[in-house]
């Protein structure tokens, strides 16, 4: 085989290989056009080769095949350019194509334009001689026109669109080389050199490169078992053609059995060679092109295993960072950010140590919306092209610039962005390869699931150790931490501060549980913000908080505690600056402090001593700070537990005072004389009937006796005014429950009656006063008091109304059950009156003066 045939064979193999690769690919207009080009090149080169080999059926047949290839190559090029640039063939080009086909058909049957060449033996080689005819010149002229048209279109595509002309550079170069080679082979110095064949290969490679640059296919497409076989077969065919005969001749030269089995040896050698070649091609291809892919797969598998085991977000992010840095070569920087509790996305793991913890964007950043919309990897330059970018704030733009990010891979969980992988590329303008983008997206998906799971786990852990209401640590976890710190360093300095809110039960009763919860949250916030980084703050019990201060002595803790006490004292005063210092809404606290090793040597001692210190602060007037000291002068002796409050005894201690106060009321309001006593009787009876225990019944009784004590500050003329009160006067009357509270507060051990006294004018439907609370938000004792108070008021004589019959009063109670009164209590009371369990107090018992009544009646008649 001559060099011409060898080059032709190589070119043919090359075309066939490319054709087989692209034939398997998913087709589009451009790839189909490229396949057509390859096909005509195969016709051209294959026809020419087989003609020279004078293969079956005849050289003339292969000549015509080759001629078809040559002619149609220009038209396939034009069609390819049209597909590549998104344009259509012109009418002229279509006309030329039809003419060319006609010419080929005519020439195939008549050989009018150019007859098949005649093979002539010259110097041991076969030379093909062409004989021009009358039709040859027009044929060449037409061919020239077609070539010119194809070249013009190529040049036009290159120059007309400034936007895409770089994409046409390979096409232009390929075409110029191709056409130049056709001209050159006509010149004597290049005679016999297969320039056109070589140029054809170069041309195909240029087209291949143009397609690759436009990312119309990926290189991995080329690597399959079929490609390896084809390459092996091609190499083997070339080797066999060139060497097999010589090899057999050499074997024949050995004589003997070797010569006898030379054909078999050649065949076996060919098989072995084919096998070795296949292995070689496969190994080399995979090493060169697929090694990276396999390595990635292995790393991805390992990553999957690792992250599914991990339950810590930080660990997952670090592994993700490590994997991507080690696998994707085009990356210079990578950071993994996760959404924090404040809605900011902060870097958890990064290739740069300096950027750890840095905020990359906040939840309201338009980039977050963009990421949610696009889901897959977002190129930051694409975002900069978007309308959303226009709505970015300057500081957000600066933040994005500082990040130097080229890609952002969002971590989306049910449409919500939980984190993002931020990638900086080595080549900012070219970015990452599509395979790299796909790989990062795959890894990101795995990491997203792992992070989601670990966040759920972390949340569960967090929930288990924190208090729902305040967000502080709960008691259980706090004690664990306390023990842990102590065990870690039993001789170390450890200070415990317990903050107990004063009268908080009363606060809850007065302002409702909602207000109470709000106050607890605010207190917790004060403690969390002011206790310092190394402290451990917890909600120790309902109204108690604890602060653990490792390596801090009592004096520092005392300063901190005093600061906290002051802030808590001012908590509600900030909202209501006019609030009186003695107001019940002011929250005070009693704080006890104890330290290891000064005041305790074990955790148990520490807890006990702090508790005792807090108790001492409470006993000594509340709203204070005290450090535990073991010395007797400091009352550090263990104290006996306080006995339960004996309300009857407490009351009796103030009996004289209360009597004096109620007497003053009675003196001011003649109509309510002994009203307090009557109410006490009815309320006590109702409380007993309701099934309350003796202690509560006693509280009800005391509250009933004191319930109108606030009227002491109301002018007598209003209290005794006959007829309707003006709205101003009624407003003054409505203040008496609060006035009562203000008086009772000066009797420190009687504060337990305050809720009932304060709320006895509240209505079940929420329309009462002073706080307009309703339903069960009204303390039970107050609801009892309300029924008793109204019954006595209705059945007694007042300045503004005559006394009503018992039945009428009972009917009124029934009618207003569920409106003014607790329906259960009202019905219970009515039934107890009707069945005689509760006796109606007589006029005398009620304190009404019949003589005075008769006198008044007489005066009226006069």
């Amino acid at each position, binding site marked *: 085989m001559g060099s011409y045939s060898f080059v032709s064979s190589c070119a043919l193999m090359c075309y066939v290989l490319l054709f087989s690769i692209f034939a398997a690919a998913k087709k589009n207009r451009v790839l189909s056009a490229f396949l057509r080009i390859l096909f005509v090149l195969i016709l051209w080169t294959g026809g020419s080769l087989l003609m020279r080999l004078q293969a079956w059926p005849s050289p003339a047949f292969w000549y015509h095949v080759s001629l078809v290839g040559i002619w149609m190559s220009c038209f396939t090029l034009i069609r390819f350019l049209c597909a590549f640039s998104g344009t259509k063939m012109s009418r002229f080009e279509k006309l030329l194509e039809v003419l060319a086909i006609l010419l080929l058909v005519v020439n195939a049957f008549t050989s009018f334009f150019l007859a098949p060449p005649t093979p002539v033996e010259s110097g041991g080689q076969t030379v093909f001689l062409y004989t021009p005819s009358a039709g040859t010149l027009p044929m060449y002229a037409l061919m020239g026109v077609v070539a010119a048209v194809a070249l013009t279109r190529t040049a036009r595509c290159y120059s007309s669109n*400034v*936007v895409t002309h770089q994409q046409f550079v390979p096409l232009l170069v390929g075409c110029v080389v191709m056409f130049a080679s056709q001209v050159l082979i006509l010149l004597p110095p290049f005679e016999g050199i297969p320039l056109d064949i070589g140029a054809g290969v170069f041309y195909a490679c240029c087209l291949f490169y143009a397609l690759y640059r436009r990312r119309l296919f990926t290189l991995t497409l080329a690597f399959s078992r079929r490609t390896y076989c084809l390459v092996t077969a091609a190499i083997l065919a070339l080797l066999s053609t060139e060497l097999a005969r010589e090899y057999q001749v050499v074997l024949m030269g050995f004589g003997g059995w070797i010569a006898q089995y030379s054909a078999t040896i050649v065949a076996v050698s060919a098989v072995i060679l084919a096998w070795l070649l296949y292995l070689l091609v496969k190994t080399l291809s995979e090493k060169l092109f697929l090694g990276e892919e396999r390595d990635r797969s292995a790393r991805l598998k390992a990553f999957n295993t690792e992250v599914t085991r991990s339950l810590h977000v930080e660990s997952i992010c670090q592994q993700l960072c490590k994997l991507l840095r080690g696998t994707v070569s085009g990356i210079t920087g990578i950071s993994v950010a996760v959404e924090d509790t404040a809605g900011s996305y902060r870097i958890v793991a990064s290739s740069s140590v300096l950027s750890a913890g840095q905020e990359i964007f906040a939840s309201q950043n*338009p980039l977050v919306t963009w990421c949610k919309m696009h889901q897959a990897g977002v190129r930051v330059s694409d975002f*900069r*092209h978007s*309308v959303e*970018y*226009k*709505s970015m704030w*300057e500081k957000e733009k600066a933040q994005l610039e500082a990040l130097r990010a080229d890609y952002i891979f969002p971590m989306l969980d049910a449409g919500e962005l939980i984190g993002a992988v931020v990638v900086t590329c080595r080549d900012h303008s070219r970015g990452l390869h599509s395979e790299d983008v796909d790989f990062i997206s795959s890894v990101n998906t795995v990491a997203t699931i792992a992070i989601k799971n670990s966040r759920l786990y972390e949340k569960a852990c967090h929930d288990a150790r924190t208090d729902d209401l305040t967000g502080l640590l709960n008691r259980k976890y706090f004690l664990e931490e306390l023990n842990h710190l102590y065990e870690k360093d039993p001789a170390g300095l450890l200070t415990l501060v317990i903050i107990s809110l004063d009268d908080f039960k009363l606060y809850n009763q007065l302002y409702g549980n909602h207000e109470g919860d709000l106050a607890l949250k605010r207190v917790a916030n004060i403690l969390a913000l002011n206790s310092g980084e190394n402290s451990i703050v917890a909600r120790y019990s309902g109204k108690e908080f604890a602060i653990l201060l490792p390596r801090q002595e009592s004096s520092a803790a005392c300063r901190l505690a005093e600061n906290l006490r002051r802030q808590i004292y001012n908590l509600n005063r900030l909202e209501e600056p006019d609030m009186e210092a003695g107001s019940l809404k002011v929250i005070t606290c009693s704080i006890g402090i104890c330290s290891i090793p000064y005041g305790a040597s074990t955790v148990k001692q520490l807890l006990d001593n702090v508790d005792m210190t807090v108790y001492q602060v409470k006993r000594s007037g509340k709203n204070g700070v005290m450090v535990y000291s073991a010395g007797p002068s400091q009352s550090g002796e263990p104290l006996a537990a306080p006995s339960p409050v004996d309300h009857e005894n407490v009351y009796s201690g103030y009996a004289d005072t209360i009597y004096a106060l109620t007497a003053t009321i009675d003196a001011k309001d003649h109509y309510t004389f002994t009203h307090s006593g009557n109410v006490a009787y009815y309320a006590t009876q109702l409380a007993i009937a309701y099934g309350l225990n003796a202690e509560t019944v006693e509280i009800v009784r005391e509250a009933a006796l004191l319930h109108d004590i606030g009227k002491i500050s109301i002018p007598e003329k209003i209290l005794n005014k006959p007829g309707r009160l003006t709205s101003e006067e009624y407003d003054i009357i409505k203040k008496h429950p609060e006035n009562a509270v203000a008086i009772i507060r000066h009797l420190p051990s009687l504060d337990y009656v305050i809720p009932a006294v304060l709320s006895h004018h509240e209505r079940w439907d929420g329309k009462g006063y002073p706080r307009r609370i309703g339903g069960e938000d009204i303390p039970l004792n107050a609801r009892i008091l309300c029924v008793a108070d109204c019954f006595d008021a209705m059945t007694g004589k007042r300045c503004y109304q005559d006394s009503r019959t018992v039945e009428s009063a009972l009917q009124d109670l029934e009618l207003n059950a569920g409106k003014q009164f607790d329906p259960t209590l009202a019905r219970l009371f009515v039934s107890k009156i009707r069945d005689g369990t509760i006796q109606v107090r007589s006029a005398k018992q009620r304190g009404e003066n019949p003589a005075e009544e008769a006198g008044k009646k007489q005066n009226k008649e006069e």
Partner: protein
Amino acid sequence: MKLTERLCQEDPEKVWQEYCGFLELDSEGYMKLQNRLLEEQLALWSDCPLGRHFLGSKRPVDYASLRQAVPLTTYEDYADILLQRRPEFLPLPPVTWIETTWEGGKRPVKTAPYTQGMVDTFSRNGVATMLLASAQGWGDFSVGDKILSGLAPMPFLTGLIGLILDEEYGFETMPPRSTIATMSFSERSKLGFKQALNRGMDYFLSMGSIAYYLSLNLSAVAGGGSGKKKGKFSLPLPALLRLAKAKMTAKREGREILPKDLFQTKGFICAGTDNACYKDDLEKMWGVRPLELFAGTEAGMVGCETWNRKDLYFFPDTAFYEFLPEQYIRSCQKDAPTLLMNEVQPGSVYELVVTSFKGGAFARYRTGDVYRCTGIGNPDDHSRLPRFCFVDRVPDIIDIAGFTRITQHSVEDVIQLSALPIQEWSAAKEFDTATGHPYLHLYVEIEPGSLVNRAVTVDVLRRHMEIYFNYLDNDYDNLKKILGLEPLQITILRSGTFATYQKRYGQPIVRISPPREQLAALVRLQAEDWAGEGEYPAI
């Protein structure tokens, strides 16, 4: 990087989307973007001495609270701070100060600070205008990099356009910025056209009136009048070839050389007022219809037309827009109600009110530019936003061809300085019926006593008044010198016409830009016999 280079490397669709993608926003998306940028601006503005000067202790965080806290403002409200050019008073430090004329004679200059963010937005929207000017449809654009500029240099806003296109996007402006600092307008124009003849040009940027003048001038130069031969031979070969080709085309068609014979212009952008009266002529001369760009010193580049050259859309990131309804335009009511972009009604006329973004100085600022909402959405533009067209400046300012700003003060000053015996007057902007070009029409009534001893013809009045208009406002002089306009026409009315008008209609006629019907009634009085309607001074 040059825009053309960028387009070679990037998908043109992305580039189009970046600059012109806002046209696809709907009203909701538009307002979302506006509100977000307003939030940023309010945080900056509330925290600087300028903002505190207006706000006191208030801290607006959104449009509703801004409206509560700040009334409508005019330049007087900012003058004390901005004319001092003290950056420490501003929300962000400015990178440049842009100037414009304020009120001839009395208050010559207005200045406005431009921060880096504002300049960036300005440049992006400038490029959007370039793309739209060369576009034939959505995303169908072509870009060149040679710009012939007929715009005034810095510190005017038009100069900023040239600056950013040159420095940030690598456009080649002709004449180059480095050479024009000391040149007169005429020298600049000549040099620019000479360079364009030599190198070709892709875009032409100018004010409509100036473009018209330059185009006419170019025709004269290229047409080869006497004394131009030497100039022609000094042209380089490419320019001569271009000229020869243009001459052949013109000769073949039997007409003078037109700019379209010389240049294959991709886009023609014009700014300023009164462009409508030049557009048709310019299109004939250039073969491309000018695309109007709308910008103001205080507001920045607010909007531009699309490829259909009919509808104006406002850029969403330049400023927060409010629209003052027509009935409040003449009033000085500071708390007049305004509408937002998603509230405007097609067919209604509004004055534009802006709040600067990106650290700008102005809040709820009345721009004095009046627009009509022509409709909402247009499928051809891919738009769902309100469309507008420019109507004119507010009535109390007469702007002639974008050059002068004549107010009641300036006319009063001219009358006072000229000592002309003008008793009553009213001024209006009118358009020449033949050419369609704008001019100032002054309707005057002469003091009756002066007619005995003074010559007060129309010509005398015009000459006198023009001297003082020139004295007070250099730009007025440019109307004549640059544009060759006769900007002033005077009509002398019968003595007593203004008084009769007031008597008959119960109110005096408005001095500046009276409504058309008022002016028509005033002129009609000339033809009537109203001698018996009252006592008028004897002549």
